[in-house]
């Protein structure tokens, strides 16, 4: 198997799903973002977004915090250090794959 295909075969399947890739990419850029922001940016339904966030949280890539800003409830999401490293590795693998094409 060529180097390029080998790197694609080993890619993180959790991040490789398109909706989750965008969620992780957004959270990689910021400290934290709330549910409403992620929903608008990804155009996912509430249920769909919740499911993806739960999968990422179960894998330890994401931390979900239910808090308040004044009187307004907020569901804040932030990438853990594990999640950041996983995304960096994912980017490196994808870049390696694209470079070998």
């Amino acid at each position: 198997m060529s180097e390029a295909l080998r790197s694609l075969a080993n890619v993180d399947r959790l991040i490789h799903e398109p909706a989750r890739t965008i969620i992780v990419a957004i959270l990689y850029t910021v400290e934290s973002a709330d549910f409403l922001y992620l929903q608008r940016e990804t155009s996912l339904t509430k249920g769909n977004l919740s499911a993806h966030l739960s999968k990422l949280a179960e894998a330890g890539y994401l931390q979900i915090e239910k808090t308040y800003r004044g009187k307004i409830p907020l569901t804040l999401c932030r990438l853990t250090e594990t999640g950041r490293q996983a995304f960096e590795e994912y980017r490196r693998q994808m870049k390696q794959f694209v470079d070998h094409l």
Partner: protein
Amino acid sequence: MKDNLKVAQQHAVQYWLVDGLNELALAGLCVLLGAYFYVQATLSPDSAAYKILDMSFVLIIIGGGLLVNRLVQVFKEQLTYPRTGFVSYRRAYGLNRWVRAVFTGGIAALMGAFLTYAFSNASAAFAWMPAVTGLVFGMVMLFIAARSALLRFYLLAAAAVLLGGGLTLAGIGNVLGLAVFYAGQALCLFVTGAWTLRSYLHDNRPPAEEAHE
């Protein structure tokens, strides 16, 4: 998909500026500074009022900056976060931290060089104050433009440099020139900020209104 990722990440970087509130708040600070320099220009340099005003400049900058930050937060909580959500940003680290340090150092070096020149050639140097201020202002706007890829900040950078340089070339230097410069900057920032806020509110209705449709 790579383009979607880039767009999503670029949106996240731009989000702090999406509503124009920062520009409106900065416009308010520029109005304050313009008024400050205008009052100073009308006073005699030997008067007690002039000296008091001179000594309070740093307090006005710090106090104004804190007030601007607070006002932006209050209005974002009322207008922006309920409509399009909340985002907080990481402190600069790694290469970004070095870029910011070099940029800040560059501005400090420019101001230091100017002040050194000013102390040895007072009257000539004061004539250049609007131009130097315009250059510094322009560099800050250019930095924001480069980070956010938002066209309006490139325009604000150009406006700052042109206004500052134009005032100096027109012979309107010194403190009065600064008053006119800050008034001009306030107008530019108000126009871009108000236009951006208007567009943002038009495109993003509060969730309660959308739910009733």
